[in-house]
């Protein structure tokens, strides 16, 4: 089957999963008291509160039975009417759920992009190297490394890195050079006349134009000092995220390299005199990557959990920190919105994983 048809089929298969996700989030909502739902949906400072609650009840379909209410929920989700949230701890925010997500999402994208690229760039060559030499010293140290970073709780890693490499945490620490919280220092901006591409969003959060990713935007506009400052801020969270992701990829890649090494086609390739590095790179690694890619989806799910913990430790204003704030501030539509968003991210990531899988392995075109 052609790749095109595979992708179309895979996109169609996403529909039941998306419906399932909305059903689960809807059930979470529906299990709460309905009077509470209507009043949580609206802006608490709305001028005519009683009228606004009535409107919200209609918008949510609270009096129309579970089926119609689900359809209302679906409609609200699709039209971007995700409700209102007032956050107090640790993030302070007052606005619609969607606008809050718009503010904090770019920061997380920045974090995940760097961590994913870095861990793949390190894991593939390293996994190939140690997987091709089973039971060597390199292999043993690689296994100890990946097992210990796989087993160490990610929040402990974050806290320890923050203390060892954080600026000003321990006085006189020569390696403590990285800022420990936030996305950039306010001192890196000329506060009196800020550049025109930095705009103030809802709740005083600074948004950069055009991509909202502060490192890339400051590079686009040629503000290298700010780019450097913002970069230093993400070094520690990216490092922790990379290490935890790297450990997982390395474990699977090593195991599947060893499996591939024992197969017939490797013996054939060796016996017909193919040079060893071609055997490793073309025959062994290419086949070992296929099972590794299937677990990338699962690893990505735990990466999203890690994002919540890491953003909490580093006070990093991303969606993980936002999700935590919605829970701690008791904002139900914030909780539902962020959960739904995380689901969408994971479904998209799984789609990309499957397509990569199909490109790498021409047999998987079912």
């Amino acid at each position, binding site marked *: 089957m052609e790749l095109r048809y595979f992708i179309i089929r895979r996109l169609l298969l996403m529909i039941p999963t998306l419906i399932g996700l909305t059903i689960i989030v809807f059930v979470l909502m529906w299990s709460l008291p309905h009077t509470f739902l209507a009043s949580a949906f609206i802006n608490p400072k709305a001028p005519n509160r009683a009228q606004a609650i009535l409107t919200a009840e209609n918008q949510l379909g609270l009096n129309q039975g579970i089926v119609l209410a689900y359809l209302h929920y679906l409609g609200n989700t699709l039209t971007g009417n995700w409700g209102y949230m007032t956050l107090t701890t640790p993030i302070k925010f007052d606005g619609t759920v969607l606008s809050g997500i718009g503010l904090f999402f770019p920061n997380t994208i920045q974090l995940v992009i760097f961590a994913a690229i870095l861990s793949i760039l390190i894991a593939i060559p390293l996994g190939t190297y140690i997987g091709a030499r089973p039971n060597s010293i390199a292999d043993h140290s690689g296994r100890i490394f990946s097992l210990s970073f796989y087993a160490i*709780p990610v929040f402990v890693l974050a806290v320890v890195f923050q*203390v060892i490499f954080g600026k000003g945490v*321990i006085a006189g620490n020569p390696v403590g050079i990285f800022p420990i919280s936030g996305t950039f220092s306010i001192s890196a901006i000329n506060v009196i006349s800020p550049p025109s591409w930095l705009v103030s969003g809802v709740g005083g959060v600074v948004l950069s134009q055009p991509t909202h990713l502060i490192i890339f935007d400051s590079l686009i506009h040629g503000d290298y000092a700010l780019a450097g400052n913002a970069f230093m801020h993400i070094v520690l969270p990216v490092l922790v995220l990379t290490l935890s992701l790297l450990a997982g990829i390395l474990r699977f890649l090593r195991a599947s390299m060893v499996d591939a090494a024992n197969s017939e086609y490797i013996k054939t390739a060796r016996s017909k005199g193919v040079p060893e590095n071609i055997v490793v790179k073309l025959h062994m690694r290419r086949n070992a990557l296929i099972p590794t890619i299937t677990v990338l989806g699962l690893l990505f799910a735990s990466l999203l959990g890690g994002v919540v913990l890491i953003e909490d430790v580093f006070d990093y204003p991303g969606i993980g920190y936002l999700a*935590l704030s919605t829970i701690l501030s008791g904002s139900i539509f914030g909780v539902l919105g962020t959960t739904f968003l995380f689901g969408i991210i994971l479904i998209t990531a799984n789609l990309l994983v499957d397509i990569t899988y199909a490109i790498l392995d021409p047999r998987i075109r079912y």
Partner: protein
Amino acid sequence: MIEETALRSNRTMEPKKHSRLENSAATFRLFLKNRLAMVGMIITLVYFAIAIADTVYPQWLGVSNLSTALNFVPGHIANTAQPSPPRFNGSWWYWFGTTYSTIPILPVMLAALRIDLAYTVLIVFLGMGIGVILGSAAGYFGGILDEIMMRVTDIFFSLPFFVFALAIVYVLGFSFDNVVLALIIIWWPTYARLSRGLALETKSFKYVEASRASGASNFKILFGHIIPNVLSPVYVQISLDLGSIIQLFASIFFLIGSFAQSTYPIEIGYMISGGESYLSEGLWWPVIIPSLFLLVFTVAVNLMGDGLRDVLDPKLRR
């Protein structure tokens, strides 16, 4: 050819109990040969022994009624004495030093282990029970049941499990029981997927056909033949999951602990968050020692799980 058939029929005529026992003894001998896996198993057993001892005879730790006596509120650490460093002369209580409000780390950590392990085992085994029964039934009966099962597990696999667990805990209200419920809800599909695949494989075996031909009911085949044969890969998954679940459990309490406004019973992730603010003063032990305690357990169950997989999966026996 005829001889081979005769041999085979001979083998099936052997008393079944005997051969199964012999088989598991051989498996166990193989497992004993793997030193790393043995170390992992011994460490795991020691952890469980401590947790059981805590439950049966709590006086040995000298820490009773943790939740009220210790008044452990990570968010409010002002105006209390500094933690004292580990010291090995004197009472074993203070071997690993103290943490917030002069709580001795070692006995409290051992007491907290009971809570962590009990809930972890509860989550893993309930999740396993639900998953294995639903998954094997789906694989065995096939058809529409199987199709529904697959779609449902697909949906659960595309949920970001940590965020989803937090959301469930929020909706149900924060308590130990609800954390357990949330983690079971996110974890059973792993077992369902695993046992469904194995049940599909098992149902085509001759002895299942034979038992159906001799008039066994679906119920009897499912519980007598399919599920027992599905279990050995499930054991591997259980031992690996003990490590993942204890960490998820601790992570949730770590997050809650950073913002706690009232006291909760002691749990290891919660203890770590209680020591977090001391790290910047160079006082490392309130965080590092409970973390190492958690780390050692996770490494041990992983080593044990890897060893189990090597002996239980005949394809890997070389």
